[in-house]
């Protein structure tokens, strides 16, 4: 739409450019410990959808030390049409300004209409710097994207307020349109072996970092991070104290899962912040989420929307969680969780015989090819 941008009405700090001059959807791929981050691959899912609606290609962008180009193929097989690779010794260590500056320079030169990044720790740190360097708009933690076919603006959809409202954010006059999404909001696209694409190496001279990495060491033994767990047993304020988590730990370990928590339990200091689920914590996607003593505030539940099933154990039949769970048992967790543990132990030890007893009289859904 020519004439859409009236340059004299724009902030003179912004370059006045026509949105039509910008083409292509970029996904900035993050490499951690020599591996492509799963969260970055997940961003190919919305990127493909947007690109198809716009009729523009998806470009993967890789920054790293020499040798990083080997990740290009994975991006192509999972949905990128082409990959830009910026390899440089100076990119061996990540610094937000350096990475941010390099990506901003590439974008200023090649003018994509959209840039997507995963909202990992690094993504959250780097994305707003890229946006500002380009004087571009940015929307954080998008849960969905739509394309306005008339204006070709991408609507970035995010929960902005109390996790209840969805805001549709539009960037009418500036390009690129930058968006981030939290890990696990989108699935990793399936690998398609037949896909091929161009890999282009770009020559860049990264700016010298002003910050210096003094040391970096891996934390000791790490449990499965909650964002990767199939089963999560989460505790809230209803636990009444840190002891409650011991019980949940036992239940989680029987189920091959991990323990997580609501913000209130973390604020109370009962469990470490890495285990927090919800708006100010993490988004998880287990098959089974067991919420124990969690009232079910909107801020918490926004983090478990992707859970396949939610079970709740709560003493309060009026708690909001009851309306948002698949199965709720109204009982004191101090008695119910030990009873669950005991039943599971029996099931573990006695095997199918006990399963039969448990399910007596139940109609069992049989999956094709599976025995029940």
């Amino acid at each position, binding site marked *: 739409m020519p004439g859409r941008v009236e340059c004299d009405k724009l902030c003179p700090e912004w370059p006045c450019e026509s949105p039509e001059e910008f083409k292509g959807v970029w996904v900035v791929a993050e490499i951690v410990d020599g591996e492509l981050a799963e969260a970055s691959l997940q961003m190919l899912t919305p990127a493909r959808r947007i690109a198809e609606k716009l009729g523009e290609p998806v470009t993967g962008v890789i920054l790293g030390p020499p040798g990083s180009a080997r990740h290009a193929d994975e991006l192509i097989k999972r949905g990128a049409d082409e990959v830009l690779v910026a390899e440089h010794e100076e990119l061996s260590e990540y610094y937000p300004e350096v990475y941010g500056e390099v990506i901003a320079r590439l974008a200023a030169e090649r003018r994509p209409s959209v840039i997507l990044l995963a909202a990992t720790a690094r993504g959250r740190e780097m994305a707003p710097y890229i946006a500002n360097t380009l004087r571009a708009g940015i929307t954080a933690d998008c849960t969905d994207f739509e394309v306005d076919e008339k204006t070709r603006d991408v609507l970035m959809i995010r929960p902005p307020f109390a996790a209840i409202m969805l805001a549709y954010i539009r960037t009418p006059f500036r390009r690129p349109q930058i968006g981030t999404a939290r890990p696990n909001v989108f699935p990793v696209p399936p690998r398609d072996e037949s896909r091929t694409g161009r890999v282009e190496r770009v020559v860049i001279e990264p700016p010298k970092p002003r910050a210096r990495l003094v040391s970096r060491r891996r934390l000791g033994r790490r449990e499965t991070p909650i964002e990767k767990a199939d089963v999560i047993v989460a505790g809230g304020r209803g636990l009444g104290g840190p002891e409650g988590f011991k019980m949940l730990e036992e239940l989680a370990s029987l189920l091959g899962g991990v323990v997580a928590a609501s913000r209130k339990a973390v604020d109370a200091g009962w469990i470490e912040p890495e285990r927090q689920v919800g708006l100010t914590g993490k988004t998880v996607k287990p098959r089974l989420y067991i919420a124990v003593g969690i009232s079910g505030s909107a801020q918490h539940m926004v983090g478990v929307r992707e859970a396949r099933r939610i079970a709740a154990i709560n003493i309060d039949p009026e708690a909001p969680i009851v309306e948002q769970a698949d199965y709720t048992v*109204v009982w004191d967790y101090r008695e119910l969780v030990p*009873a669950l543990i005991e039943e599971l132990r029996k099931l573990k030890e006695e095997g199918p015989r006990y399963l039969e007893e448990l399910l007596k009289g139940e109609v069992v859904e049989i999956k094709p090819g599976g025995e029940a």
Partner: protein
Amino acid sequence: MPLRILVGVKWVPNTQAVRIDPKTGTLIRQGVPSIVNPNDLAAVELALRLRDQHGGEVIAVSMAPPPAVKGLEMLLGMGVDYAYLFSDRVFAGADTLATSYVLAHGVKYVERERGKVDLLVFGQETIDSSTAHVPAQTASWLGWPYIYYARRVEVADGRVRVERVVEGYVEEYELPMPAVISVAARSFKPREVTLRGKLRAKTEKPIKIVSNKELGLDPRCVGLKGSPTIVAKVTYLPEVPRRKEVYRPRDARDGARWLLRKLLTDPETRDVILSALWGGSGAREG
């Protein structure tokens, strides 16, 4: 060497106090009080500790409407030395880029009035929008180095050392000053407001309200006009369909068995449980 430390704070609606009208399913915003963003208090605490250690001054800076004075008074009560409130109708409706533009120029304004700034600290993110944009954006306008998720901060020889934990690693960085530091949530337990501090806030009024007349920014660069992003529309988050089966058991064992029966006859959860208990595919011959 004494330090001049600025803390960026946001005046936010207390989203924890927002309730849903059970009849209409809409937000009840009325009577929702505004507060200083809780994560910002950790940044204030860090600034106060560094000042207590090295000398100097802590100055809170905020872009907000006039009622935010209340919040700034609270920070003065904690021991903050001065506060600047950048407040003007033309700042309304700002997205994070336009907000950081005002803050960055606010920092320059404070420097002109009080002298060079060594550190600008922020909280991890806000409770009302949680974008975590503004620290990096402000750093970009100022051209200062920056780092997120600081949980320990030390200053020596004009440089700042920051320890942080991200994605399974403990990292230590050193940055030249001036620098922008965003503080990890809960890293520094904020001190209480003291009576003496409150009294000082009331009597000395060390809060300066600065309008855009004094800041002198192009109105096209601030507020709604200076925001590349606009909110096109707002809707409610659609509900996730759930089974909503509720059981009030006779006793704990009855409850446990009910729940297990549900989970073990549900194809979504059956296999994951049985394979955890029995190993393998979960479909053991029996």
